[in-house]
């Protein structure tokens, strides 16, 4: 992927990408972050501690543990997860994409759960989502914008937990591809630093491969990571 030809955020954000057995989009997420000028560390799920100086963490898409039993059900018990929970509690930004979103829900870092798509079929196509909660990204420049980003999943229908209402971050625009409640495509925790979404921004960064709206989202995430690091 050619180096980004636009100025990346300064100083360089340093983010990690978790890798579970069965993660498939881990390298894609790392490549997208690097394309946007970040330093990236791959973190194996058996490590008990996160690397020093990490400003943000991506939990990638894929089929951790083959999605057996429930997508994300087994990954939450990996040795690295307690450190991930502490990292979130310290207010650092986390982004769970697709399987990553499922893992964050199963581990309780995000409320609710994700169940099988309404038509019981895997869906892979581009789709439009709207940004619902501007506060999440501290009013960064895309309030209310519609982003065109690919989805690819078989268990993407969000079911809210009546006791823990989610902050809705993204909704599908003008359609509901998988029967998700209130067209929810992504949510955030109360504090707003842990984000989970089904669409794959890392697959909408390189213009040669398709759209580039994913870069807008990932850049906003990197900005949050820098902001959190600088507030230490």
């Amino acid at each position, binding site marked *: 992927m050619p180096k980004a030809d636009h100025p990346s955020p300064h100083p360089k954000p340093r983010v990690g990408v978790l890798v579970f057995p069965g993660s498939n989009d881990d390298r894609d997420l790392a490549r997208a972050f690097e394309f946007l000028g970040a330093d990236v560390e791959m973190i194996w799920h058996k490590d008990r501690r996160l690397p020093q100086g990490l400003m943000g963490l991506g939990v990638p898409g894929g089929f951790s543990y083959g999605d057996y*039993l*429930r997508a994300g*059900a*087994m990954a939450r*018990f990996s040795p690295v997860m307690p450190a991930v929970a502490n990292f979130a509690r310290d207010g650092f930004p986390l982004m769970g994409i697709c399987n990553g979103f499922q893992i964050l*829900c*199963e581990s309780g870092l995000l*409320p*609710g*759960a994700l*169940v*099988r*798509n*309404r*038509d*019981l079929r895997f869906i892979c196509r581009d789709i439009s989502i709207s940004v619902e909660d501007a506060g999440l990204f501290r009013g960064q420049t895309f309030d209310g914008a519609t982003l065109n980003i690919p989805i690819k999943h078989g268990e993407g*229908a969000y*079911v809210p*937990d009546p006791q823990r209402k989610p902050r809705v971050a993204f909704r599908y625009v003008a359609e509901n591809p998988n*029967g998700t*409640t209130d067209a929810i495509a992504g949510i955030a925790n109360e504090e707003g630093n842990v984000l989970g979404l089904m669409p794959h921004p890392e697959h909408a960064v390189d213009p040669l491969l398709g759209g580039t709206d994913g870069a807008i989202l990932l850049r906003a995430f990197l900005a949050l990571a820098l902001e959190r690091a600088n507030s230490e």
Partner: protein
Amino acid sequence: MTVQVLVSPKEGVLDPEGRALQSALHDLGHAAVNSARVGRVITLELETSSKEVARDQVREMCEKLLANPVIEQYEIVILE
């Protein structure tokens, strides 16, 4: 000791499989089916021979892994 865990979707929670199954059964002419719910049955072979120990162990497994309390309920059946 054989223990079965029946994990099924909670009342009112999205059950795409159950709904798809009901319409498929109706298409096959089984109009008498008022509702269908699809869950998982997990059959475990446990080393222990005491029913209480087995039940406690399996309950812990359900709480931790086998069922997601947000969307599922479970029932433990000790077979023999």
